[in-house]
Each structure stands twice: as C-alpha cells, then as structure tokens.
C-alpha cells in the first residue's frame, strides 16, 4: 500500500508543473504541491483512513502473525479436535486438530499476495496497452482494441474455471497470470481515451518535436499524467482480484492444494458453517473486511485525486466559508 502512495506523491510532483491553478488554491502564497493536497484530502476522509489502517494491519498480520503463534499450519494438536475458540487456540481448531489461526493466516497470505500481484500486473498491462493503442492509433490500435472487446465478452470466471484442470498441480503464479489477463481491459480503454487527448497537449508535442522516441514520450509524459487513474485502478483491482481468486478457489478451480487461500478455506468449511461456525466465520470475516477496506481506500483516493469529485469540493467550500466567517 505504502508503495502505491509514494508513487502518488512523486506523480503528484511531476503533475504539479502542468497542474491547474485550482489545485493550488486553498493556501495562497505558500507553495503547495499536488501530492500534499492529495494527502490532506485523503487524511480528511475517515473511512479511507480506517481502510488504509486495516489493509496495512492485515498485510502485517498475514506475514508476521504466524511467527507470533506457537501453532503452525502443518502441525496438529491431538488434544483438540473441532474445538471452538479458546485461550490456547484463539480461532479454534479444525477436525484434524490444526490451529485455525495459523491456517487463516496462511490463507490470508496467499490471497493478499495474489491480490497485490494481479493488481500490479493488470494495471501495468492496461497502461501499456491503452497508451500504445491511443498513441500510435492505426493498425496497432485496431488489433489491441479487438483483443479488448473479445476478452470483455468472455466471462472470466468461466474461462479460468475451464482452464483449471490445466494448471492443477502447477504453480499458483499461473493463476495470477490468468486473473490479471482478464482484469486489464476496461482500464486499457479509459487509458486509451485519455491518451488521445493527452497527445494533443503542448508538452507532448514539444517532446515529440525535440526528437524524443515514442517509448520515452509514453513512459515519461503520458503515463505519469494518468497516475491518479492508475493508482485508483490498482487499488480497486486488489479487491476485485481477491474476490475473483476466492470465488474460483471456493469451487477448487483456483488455488490448488497444498497451497491454501481464504477461498479454499471458506469452500472447505462452508458446508459445516451451521454446526462449526468458527471454521467458516474467521476466513470469511477476514475476506469481507479486507475487500471492504480496499473499497473505502479506493473511494477515498478517487475523492482525493479527482479535482471534479463533488464530495471533497463541497467540504472544501464549507471549510473556506468557515474560515471566512
């Protein structure tokens, strides 16, 4: 998460040169970078802050938590089978005596890792494909947009499920590739549209006439100017990737044993949820809270990064009115 935020700051400074005067308005006289403004706006959004804390907390918990527990996912406690949560096993145990906390953390690790990787890959692909199609137009554009349309028609859930016998027993990274392959299309279209307008702007034309190669122009001038969109997109994609992965894993079409994800845990224990609720509630709870936190952060980022977003505007107007009074 912090990585993405830093990216936003640096992108903000790049954008400040071309930033509209409205962005720098609130404190006249004092130089205010766009990055700082975005940060201030984001911090004002309580839900987004809560979401950010939750996300960072969950990543920490998933990767550090297992070291703090005395139980591990591959050892069994033969004195506790199907025990509800108590002091020794805070999340209870399953039917072979495995500690549910250790299992849940292991599933959380995989799900969060898959979510992050899919988001990074799909947003990168979307930026490259969209910007290339929009910048060069012509045959490249036609071909790329045809692929986009085709992939949009295919229901990704169905296709990945059909392909699941093929990646059974292979690395879970294949699943990451598959999920990413079906998540970049809509963003690529938006990026293409934005590139079309950006490439008519003076600074892009100037770079072009100075003899910069197209690759440099796209990487240095076009993509950084869409940083806000890409950051929001990457954030929201983490959530939808986790949802897609857990959905597939629920049926056994996603993460395959011996790997464990939140989805496989939920799928395994949903049947017995009415009799042994703790087996289901802990993995499901982590999943819902994580996706909820991602959605809050995504919403907060959109409000903070998009100068036309109404909610922040209204608040700012109110603030300036209060200051004036």
């Amino acid at each position, binding site marked *: 998460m912090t990585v993405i935020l830093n990216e936003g700051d640096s992108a903000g400074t790049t954008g400040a040169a071309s930033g509209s005067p409205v962005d720098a308005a609130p404190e006249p006289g004092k130089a205010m970078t766009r990055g700082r403004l975005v940060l201030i706006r984001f911090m004002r959004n309580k839900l987004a802050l809560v979401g950010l804390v939750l996300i960072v907390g969950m990543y920490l918990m998933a990767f550090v938590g297992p070291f703090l527990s005395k139980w591990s996912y591959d050892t069994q406690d033969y004195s506790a089978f199907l025990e509800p949560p108590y002091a020794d096993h805070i999340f209870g145990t399953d039917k072979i005596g495995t500690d549910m906390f250790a299992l849940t953390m292991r599933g959380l690790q995989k799900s969060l890792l898959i979510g992050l990787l899919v988001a990074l890959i799909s947003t990168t692909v979307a930026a490259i494909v969209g910007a290339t199609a929009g910048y060069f137009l012509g045959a490249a554009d036609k071909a790329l947009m045809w692929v986009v349309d*085709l992939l949009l*028609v*295919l*229901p990704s*859930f*169905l*296709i990945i*499920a*059909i*392909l*699941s*016998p*093929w990646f059974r027993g292979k690395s879970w990274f294949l699943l990451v590739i598959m999920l990413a392959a079906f998540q970049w299309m809509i963003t690529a279209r938006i990026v293409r549209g934005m590139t079309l307008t950006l490439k008519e702007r003076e600074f892009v034309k100037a770079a072009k006439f100075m003899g910069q190669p197209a690759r440099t122009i796209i990487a240095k001038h076009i993509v950084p100017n869409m940083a806000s969109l890409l950051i929001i997109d990457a954030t929201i994609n983490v*959530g939808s990737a986790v*949802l897609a992965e*857990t*959905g597939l894993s*629920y*049926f*056994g*079409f996603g993460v395959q044993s011996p790997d464990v994800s939140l989805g496989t845990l*939920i*799928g395994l224990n*949903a049947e017995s*949820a*009415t009799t042994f*609720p703790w087996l*289901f509630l802990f993995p*499901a709870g982590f*999943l*819902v809270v994580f*996706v*909820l936190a*991602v*959605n*809050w952060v995504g919403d907060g980022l959109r409000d903070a990064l998009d100068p036309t977003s109404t909610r922040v505007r209204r608040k700012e107007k109110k603030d300036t009115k209060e200051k004036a009074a």
Partner: protein
Amino acid sequence: MAGFLLRRLVNYVVLALVATFLAFTLASATFDPIGVLQQRNPPPPAASIEAKKRDLHLDQPIPQRFVTWMSGVVQGDFGRTITDRPITDELGRRIGVSLRLFLLGITIGILFGVLLGVVSAIRQYKFSDYFATLFSFILLSTPVFVLGTLLKMGAQGINDSIGSNVLIFVGEETPGFQGNWFEHLGDRLQHLIVPTLTIALGQIAYYSRYQRSSMLDVLGSDFLRTAQAKGLTRRKALFKHGLRTALIPMATLFAFGFGLLVVGGTFTERIFGWFGMGDWLVTGISAQDTNITATVTLFVAVCVLFSGWLADVLYAALDPRIRVN
C-alpha cells in the same frame, strides 16, 4: 427503430457464437476425459477406451468437433455427457430451476435497488443515505458464497428459535412432497426465500449505488427546476421527469448486472443444493465434460446477450433520441 434492434440482435447472436466456440475449444483442449477413465480401478480394457474416444469424437480435430456439436444444437440435440446421458433431457429442467431463481432475484434486486438509490439521492447526506451507503458497501464487499452461507446460518437460527422448519435451505422442493397445488406452492416458497434473498441483496446494493449517483446528476439539472416552476409538485417532477431520465444510464447496467447474477447464481445454487445450470457448470468442469461445459456457456451467453438486447430495447423506450435516429 426495428432496424436498430434487429442489427443489435444479429450482433449479439454472433457474439454468443464466438463465446461458445471459444469455451468449447478451450474445454476440448484442456479436458482429459480419457485420463479420468484410465485412472479407474480396475482399468477398463483398451477396446472400451477406444470406443469412448470415438463416442466423444476425440479422434477428430477440435473445430470439426465443434461443428458436429453445433449442428446438433441447431436441431435441439446438445450431445451426450461423458456418462452417455443425453444433455437435452436434463437441460429444460435445469434451465427452469435457474431461471426461477434468477428472474425473481433480479426483479426484486432492480425494484428495491432503484428505490433505495432514489431515496438516498433525494435525502442526500441524511441518516438514511449514510445507512444505505454503508449497507451497500458491506454487501458489495461480501462475496455471494459468504453471504449465502451467512444467510443459511441466520435461517438456521430463526428455525431454531421458532422451533419449526419454516425457512428451508436445502434443495428447491421437498422430495416426495404430497399435497394439492397450493401446498406445493407453499413448499416451493419456503425453499425460495433464502436463496432469492442471497441473490437479491447483492443486486440491490449494486444498483442502488449507481442509481444514487445518476439520480444526483439529474437532481441538479435545469429541466427539473423548470418542471417545478411550471407548477408540478416536487414528487411528480421527481418521478415523471427525474427518475425517467436517471434510469437511462441504468439500462446498460441491468445487462451487466445479469452477467454478474449468472456467476453469482452458480454459488447460490451450489450452497443451497439447487440443481440448476450453475451447479451443472461446476459438475461439468469437475468431470471434465466438454459438452456440458459448452452447453452451460451457451446458456450463459444467451442470457447475458439477451439481457443486453433487452437493455437496448429499454434504452430506446426511455430515451426518445434513440428512436428518432
């Protein structure tokens, strides 16, 4: 108008064919039904494996297999399963089961979703708006398989506290149920409530968000002020002029929503033990059965594209500009 709708229909038929072809090709390429057969204990004789290969047309190239299957489909024959049962026999019943669930779920979802969105927009930043926002945020972050299982647990709790089995959450009807048609209807209703709620809740959350923002856009428009200025009551202006305009962008969403619903329906059917199309897809992929998978894909494609076409019709009905062009 008729020409426009006809053109769209042709476009959708082509898309459905492409989607089915791709699903069929991918399934044929990845599935290995003979491998499943060979792993049986005791292993079947080579002659019967050869016969099975011929039955499944595995000796032919994949495009030819598709043509064979498709020419059967055109005549109403969807081929046979791996276990050599005709698919057509089961198809009608399964479609009936799925559609009963989907249509009821989507109707309730659209009605209440639109209503909730309109109310939130009209009473923006009031308690009801914040409550609706939180409600839909949480529901949108909850995958269907978690929601379904939670509702199942809730239904179990209600049944326990009442002391009788009012909300039944296994199957779509009581097997061997005796009684007149009225009692049959009651029995079906008892089975319907929890699964329908599972589907409807997610849909309500999804539509209400979009309806809220599209209604907010309309609320600020000039024509609404004019309508009130010329003497319409606020209620009349809001519903006759406001809602109708705000529904136009929603028409496209209804089509997308149906796509979501079909995937969500797969989970719902599995959780509540309904033997519909979604359940069949999971069975088909697990059994590595190409014909079942392709049949379900065709069904999904027809559903999604038909709802897309319906959205076009709705669009034309709501927006007079489209009818003129």
